């Protein structure tokens, strides 16, 4: 489990998280959704141990503030919203930096992670020359290489992803979400801050919906993603539809011609 209890976070004079509790289970993709400024990224940064905050975060039962950086690095990887690379490392070198904590990284681990994100052919290109979306995938490859297999010797490993598909085209959005889904299906835990409600509905098992610095609702995707709850969180009227089950014929009236 990844659990946060009574998280309070103050940045400057603003309290951005109020007494927030959060749970994510291994084997699941847990999405954190909510409007801009609702505290999604702040919550993720508390979960990854970036920011000093009130309350307690435990990862697989261990308080993360008691773990050394390299112990934490072996248990969870973090993909920030945007990463800047100061020097012209190649894509492969970038992924290898992610293996810094490992004493003896598995042979070819970096190349496998690059292949998984579809960047094997860009291994020798400087990261700074890749497009924004490719860079985002390169950093995902770095995080995948860092955590290694979804389940460690005695506990699941975790991916904490902050808007992992924000810079991607639709095919790569699906590819990246599938990587997250596969990681969870293999026993690992995934927590992702998501803006795209449709992708959330397709890939997440549970959703925590943030509003005004506290969770408005959390539970299974179907329970949270209702017209009422989403309308309340985003402050606008929304109607949640559902796709017809596969194999059922359906007709869209927009397709009619007179």
């Amino acid at each position, binding site marked *: 489990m990844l659990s946060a209890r009574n998280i309070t976070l103050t940045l400057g004079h603003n309290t951005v998280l109020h007494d927030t509790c959060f749970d994510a289970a291994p084997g699941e993709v847990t999405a954190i959704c909510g409007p801009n400024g609702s505290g999604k990224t702040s919550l993720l940064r508390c979960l990854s141990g970036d920011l000093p905050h009130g309350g307690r975060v435990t990862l697989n039962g261990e308080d993360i503030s008691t773990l050394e950086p390299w112990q934490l690095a072996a248990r969870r990887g*973090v993909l920030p919203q945007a990463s*800047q690379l100061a020097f012209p*490392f190649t894509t492969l070198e970038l992924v290898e930096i992610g293996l810094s904590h490992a004493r003896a990284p598995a042979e070819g681990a970096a190349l496998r992670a690059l292949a998984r994100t579809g960047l094997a052919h860009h291994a020798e290109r400087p990261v*700074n020359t890749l497009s924004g979306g490719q860079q985002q995938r390169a950093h995902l490859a770095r995080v995948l290489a860092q955590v290694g297999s979804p389940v460690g010797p005695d506990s699941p490993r975790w991916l904490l992803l902050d808007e992992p598909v924000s810079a991607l085209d639709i095919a790569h959005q699906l590819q990246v979400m599938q990587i997250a889904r596969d990681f969870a299906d293999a026993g690992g835990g995934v927590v992702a801050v998501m803006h795209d409600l449709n992708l959330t509905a397709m890939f997440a098992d549970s959703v925590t919906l943030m509003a005004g610095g506290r969770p408005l609702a959390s539970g299974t995707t179907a329970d949270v993603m209702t017209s009422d709850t989403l309308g309340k969180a985003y402050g606008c009227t929304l109607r949640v539809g559902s796709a017809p089950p596969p194999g059922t014929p359906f007709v869209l009236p927009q397709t009619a011609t007179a």
Partner: protein
Amino acid sequence: MASLIDVAPAPRSRLARARRLHLWLALLMVVIGALSLGAGATGVDPLAALWRLARGLPLERTEAVVLLDIRLPRLAMGLLVGAALAVSGALMQGLFRNPLADPGIVGVSAGAGLGAISAIVLGGALPAGLAVLAGPHLVALAAFAGALASTWALYRIATRQGRTSVSTMLLAGIALGALTGALSGVMVYLADDNQLRDLTFWGLGSLSGASWSRLAASAPIIFVALAAASTLGRALNALSLGEATAAHIGIPVQSAKRRAILCVAGATGAAVAVSGGIGFIGIVVPHLLRLASGPDHRALLINAGLLGATLLVAADMVARSIVSPSELPIGIVTAVLGAPVFLWILLKRHGADAC
């Protein structure tokens, strides 16, 4: 899932190439060092001296003095100062995530300078006991103290709750540099004519004051700083992704930064103390090496030490021979070589930002 067959061509490792470069740079350092022993105003030939020794004959008096007491300590100091400045530059650039960072920028050199200038101007006013105690090392000690004090002040200003903000540190460095520069100006105002001459020469940078006793004061500090710096490669690689990401990757960020800052203060302070303001080595050397073999700090820090040492000794040879039998301050030579490279980096970055 993407097929693993995609991987086919095994990428060449730039790290391996950078490691092979260690050997070539070391070789180059030995060659340039040997050449510099033969260069100088008196026309003493180290090969002839070596040949005399090989035949079991004692050295002539001038040979012994020129080679052992003048050129050899000068060579040793050039190697040490060059390595210290280049490695300090590479460390600062990694720490600040900026290829244009340099000890000169965050006020470390300015702090060392204030120490040295104060010692030159106010040294005579010291209580007699203290003056005897410090003796000929006074300038060196004061410069070292100045570098440490400004680094410490910088660190205290920029660090809150164990976290250093790089932008605060850069800005504080500029402010501290201005402050120490102003204080140095006051010192220059107070100085008499003889002291002004000393100040000018010290400020331009020179290896001409090299002696075994001066070397004894700074060599151990530089050695320790260089050895400690060579263990920071992984941490600096991770830091190039930013502090938060470096921590995610498993680097103990705060302690790595503290060690890097201490190394810079030690190496720069000791180097400035014995040689004055020799600029641009810290910018030029790491930049050339990144072009040659990539930015991996595990190899870069060692290569920077080797190439920095070689380059400074070469620059010193130029400074000694170009207006022989007199000599140019070496800071002029490094600035003439280095400033265009600095501008070139700047322009290239500008172009990259524009597209």
